[in-house]
């Protein structure tokens, strides 16, 4: 089974993504910031990361930079931000994100991108 890591410091947001992803046949785990995300993925890497930009300790960009420099499977990253500035979007892609979404994310939007990035997950 494919596994997704949700990285966001807000518990409600993690719960929201989790309940949306329940429509898919995937495993879901959570981390509150980039440091915890790295610790978890080093134990067992994931197939997809959904990562918030603004987090304490290590933010989305910092996490992405670390991930892309680690010797682990380089899988898709879906970055989520509160701001829609085009400058940020370019920065996210340059840092190695595959998709950049703005909060608040709609369930169908999340599912569409996750399905695509995971390559045809069964609904």
């Amino acid at each position, binding site marked *: 089974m494919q596994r997704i890591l949700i990285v966001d410091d*807000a*518990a*409600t*947001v993690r*719960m*929201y993504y989790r*309940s949306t992803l329940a429509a898919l046949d995937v495993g879901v785990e959570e981390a509150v910031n980039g440091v915890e995300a790295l610790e978890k993925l080093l134990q067992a890497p994931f197939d997809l990361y959904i990562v918030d*930009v*603004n*987090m*304490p*300790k290590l*933010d*989305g*960009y*910092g996490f992405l930079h670390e991930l892309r420099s680690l010797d682990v499977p380089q899988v898709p990253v879906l970055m989520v931000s*509160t*701001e829609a500035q085009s400058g940020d979007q370019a920065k996210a892609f340059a840092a190695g994100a595959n998709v950049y979404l703005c*909060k*608040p*994310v*709609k*369930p169908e939007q999340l599912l569409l991108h996750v399905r695509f990035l995971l390559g045809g997950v069964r609904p």
Partner: protein
Amino acid sequence: MALIKAPQSQPVNEDERRHARTARDLMADLAAADAATRRWAARDLAAFPEAVAVLVARLKVEAEVSVREVILTTLTRLGDDLAIAGLVDCLRSEDAALRNEALEAMKQLPEEVAPIMRGLLRDGDPDVRIFAVNILESLRHPEVEAWLIDVIAHDAHVNVCATALDLLGEVGTEAAEGPLRALTARFPGEPYIQFAASLALGRIHEG
């Protein structure tokens, strides 16, 4: 070769010299080429409240994360109005890491931040307002719930309201129920708002 006993740990002469340095020496060391020197300077400046301005200035240009962290610990310890103002400045930085680090430091200074909270919650920049709501998480102040309710009642920006919602689930009382319902009416097309408001209402109701 084996387990050997370390010689008695004495402060090395070098340390004594370092410790006796003046604020001026330490502030100069904040710009040293070597990161360890900058860290020690930032740490030792915790004894010198007059160094706040220099610490804030260095924070804004310091690229080495370990040095930034020590500067922030020191600024948190000094925690005066000037330090707070410096941290608020950092909330507006282009540097995402610095913004988030400054936010964390401010969360450690709830009493000192309280007087400017109202202003921050009304800031023109929605990102700053989101940070302000975030700071409320650690603030022990009788107005916290009222401020959160004010945000969800009036803030135009959906993400500022969403951040407030998260906290209301944890600290909200019956007073928040009406405003929570009103919020769901204000953003009927936003599933996240519906989800989070419903969660918060459930928490308040059962609590």
